[in-house]
């Protein structure tokens, strides 16, 4: 075969270019460690998502140290959870699956981008060095309101991040003269112990309890409320744990024997 000299040179240069491309991308994979979305996270039956260990309650979980796992369920036309918060200086592994059709989970302006295919779980691990706010959008057509499918990813400074949850059990009504209890459930999603203080304010009274919640568990803090101190009428209360608070109103009613069935002795 008769190939012109210039063409031979061109051919050689083309081969160098091609091999060079493959080499740089291979370097990106083994050097900086940019892994591809793959089949590691396995498959899932979309009908079983609600019973799935990982996806039944999607959200952020602390694995230990600076490692977190975030599970997300995509569906037409929203993400659950719609807003995700993770700390800076963290390594976050996302697990995403779809309840219905093919979606994507794409963090705008970054290389965090994966297809979300029903039946499959997409897994990717991302380093977040700096705080910042990012939009999340679906970039695969998923039905007529596809363009409304969005979410939010907030990377907050480390010292502003926790996985504390507060829920309060309190009666609505209690008979005057009885004691009752307001219970704060403080749960700690981090793996380390949480040392904090729970505060109840009711009427003019304030009480505090120090509490230590072990990693990945929940503690109950009970506040005993004596209606004698409060007197009859409606009393607003607030329970505060760090930045979290929950409020309600406790009605102290005269014990005239016609109290509502749940008035009772004030047990929640």
């Amino acid at each position, binding site marked *: 075969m008769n190939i012109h000299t210039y063409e031979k040179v061109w051919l050689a240069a083309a081969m160098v270019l091609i091999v060079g491309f493959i080499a740089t991308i291979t370097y990106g994979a083994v050097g900086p460690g940019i892994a591809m979305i793959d089949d590691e996270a396995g498959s899932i039956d979309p009908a079983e998502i609600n019973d799935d260990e990982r996806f039944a309650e999607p959200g952020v979980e602390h694995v230990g140290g600076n490692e977190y796992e975030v599970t997300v369920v995509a569906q037409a036309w929203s993400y659950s959870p719609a807003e995700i918060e993770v700390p800076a200086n963290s390594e976050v592994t996302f697990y995403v699956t779809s309840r219905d059709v093919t979606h994507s989970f794409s963090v705008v302006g970054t290389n965090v*981008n*994966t297809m979300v295919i029903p039946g499959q779980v997409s897994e990717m691990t991302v380093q977040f060095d700096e705080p910042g706010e990012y939009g999340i959008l679906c970039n695969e057509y998923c039905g007529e309101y596809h363009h409304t499918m969005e979410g939010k990813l907030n990377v907050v400074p480390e010292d502003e991040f926790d996985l504390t949850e507060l829920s309060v059990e309190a009666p609505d009504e209690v008979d005057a003269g009885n004691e009752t209890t307001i219970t704060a459930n403080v749960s700690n999603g981090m793996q380390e112990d949480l040392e904090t203080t729970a505060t109840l304010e009711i009427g003019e009274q304030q009480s505090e309890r120090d509490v230590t919640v072990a990693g990945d568990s929940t503690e109950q803090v009970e506040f005993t409320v004596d209606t004698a101190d409060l007197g009859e009428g409606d009393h607003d209360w607030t329970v505060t744990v760090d930045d979290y608070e929950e409020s309600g109103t406790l009605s102290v009613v005269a014990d005239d024997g016609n109290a509502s069935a749940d008035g009772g002795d004030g047990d929640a």
Partner: protein
Amino acid sequence: MAMRNAYVDQFPSEARLISAAFWSSFLALAIGGSLGLVQALHRTDYLRFIDSVDYYTVLTAHGVLLAITFTIFFLVGIFTWAVTTSLDRGLEDLRFSWAWYAMMVVGTVLVGVSILGGVVDSIDMQADVLFTFYAPLQAHPAFYVGLVLFVVGTWLAGADWFRTWWAWRGENPDERIPLPTFMTLTTTLFWYLCTLGVALSILVLLLPWSMGIVDSVNPLLSRTLFWYFGHAVVYFWLMPAYMMWYIMLPKLSGGKLFSDPLARVVFVLFLLLSTPTGIHHQYLDPGIAEGYKFIAMTNTMFLLLPSLLTAFTVVASMEHGARQRGGTGYLGWLKALPWRDPVFTGMALAGLMFAAAGFSGMINAGMNINYLVHNTWWIVGHFHLTVGTAVALTFMAAAYWFVPQVTGKQLWNRSLALGQVLLWFVGMTFMSNAMHRSGLFGMPRRTAEPQYQGFNFEPAAGTVGEINAQVALGAALLTIALALFLLNMVMTTIGGESDAIPDNTYAGTLSGPEDAPVVLDNLKLWTAIATVLVVFAYTLPLASIIDAGGLFGPGIEGFQLTIGIDPAIVLESVREVMP
């Protein structure tokens, strides 16, 4: 009457068939192209006269009509011309030829009507599934049946070309396959190889599922089979454009093709590598191991080779032509090229844009760089340079030569044609450049309203408003160029016969087939190797997808998310994502 020797004089019956194919193609171009303007104005929020939910019906029609109907109807015309002209013999049986043409038309009509049902209430169908029809989004069965008929029509067209070649071979056992026929046959071979995937996907998985015969689908499997076809199809459109650059551009430049042997090598490489690359569209898919993605990437990168070789050969041939016309100097020869000829200029500009497309394609092909641009508007910018310009502009420029050839009528207005190809180039420069840039900051493709509640896009340079303005301006210029093209075609066709039609010829070669090793013409060998490469690239990924999800998937039913959705649920979903 002076002796005229145009194609219509040599093969009057075939000329009618090619004319019909061209007009089917132009009709698809007219409708699909106009819908493109509707989308550009809607997305950029310059003019929204359709409901955003109907945007996706419009987008489906735009994709199918342009990527499938416009391109393939035109190329069956070109390939029929190439085979008959280069073998100097007509098709074996015109009834058979009209049958495959009719099959393609019926398929298109079925697909078109089912898509139209998305916006016309009296048609009880819908196919708002876009060009890629990813399950479990489900279309009406007519959509899938139409696609199958269309593809089978192209298979029969391919059989027609092979039949003609076999007949010629019988009479010319010792001759080399003429280059245009060689190009047609190698392209047809990889078309057979790749369409097998989409045919299996439709016939085994999607059609029975859309008819309710099976009640579940494996989305990743049907998606992988789509892309098994979905990348090779781009080379199916591109090969006729390459053929034009190889066998028409050198002639139009005033010279000869630089090298016949390397042209054959290029087409053999496309036969080998077009199909085992499809997984590069699935770099971000879960359920496919990284190794298979790496294999697809390596094959894709090596596909740069035939395109880089083409760049050399085409430019060298043009330079040879220019020097024959008196051009001199290192770059001065460029001035000697026939820039006033719309056929030449259109094809040359299309080639130039394809070079730009090659660079954005190299980004897409890099599997980890792809994270940044996957499914963004960058990709749309990329393929508007490839299929939207390298192919479409070459086809339009070619039509200025071909339509006179197959009708015997002179091009109505040559200056208008020159203005038209320039306008397309300018319009596409605005539109594609802006689309590429917007992808870099994450603006998604396939979205009616890329305006979100919870965040704004942050371009590194420029503004979203300026990018939208460029897209809208580019789309408007492209639509004007499209209208001018169609006007020229209509006026040419209703004009009178002319004696001044040039002879039906294509470029000679500087280095001819006698320099090409005979093994290059061994189509059986190349087909066998291509098949082995496909088996190598696809067996394991497909096996693992079926192993994990089953042939029909884990109870995944169809979704038609355009009907039967309770508006309350829609509002709920919208509210949920609001901060």
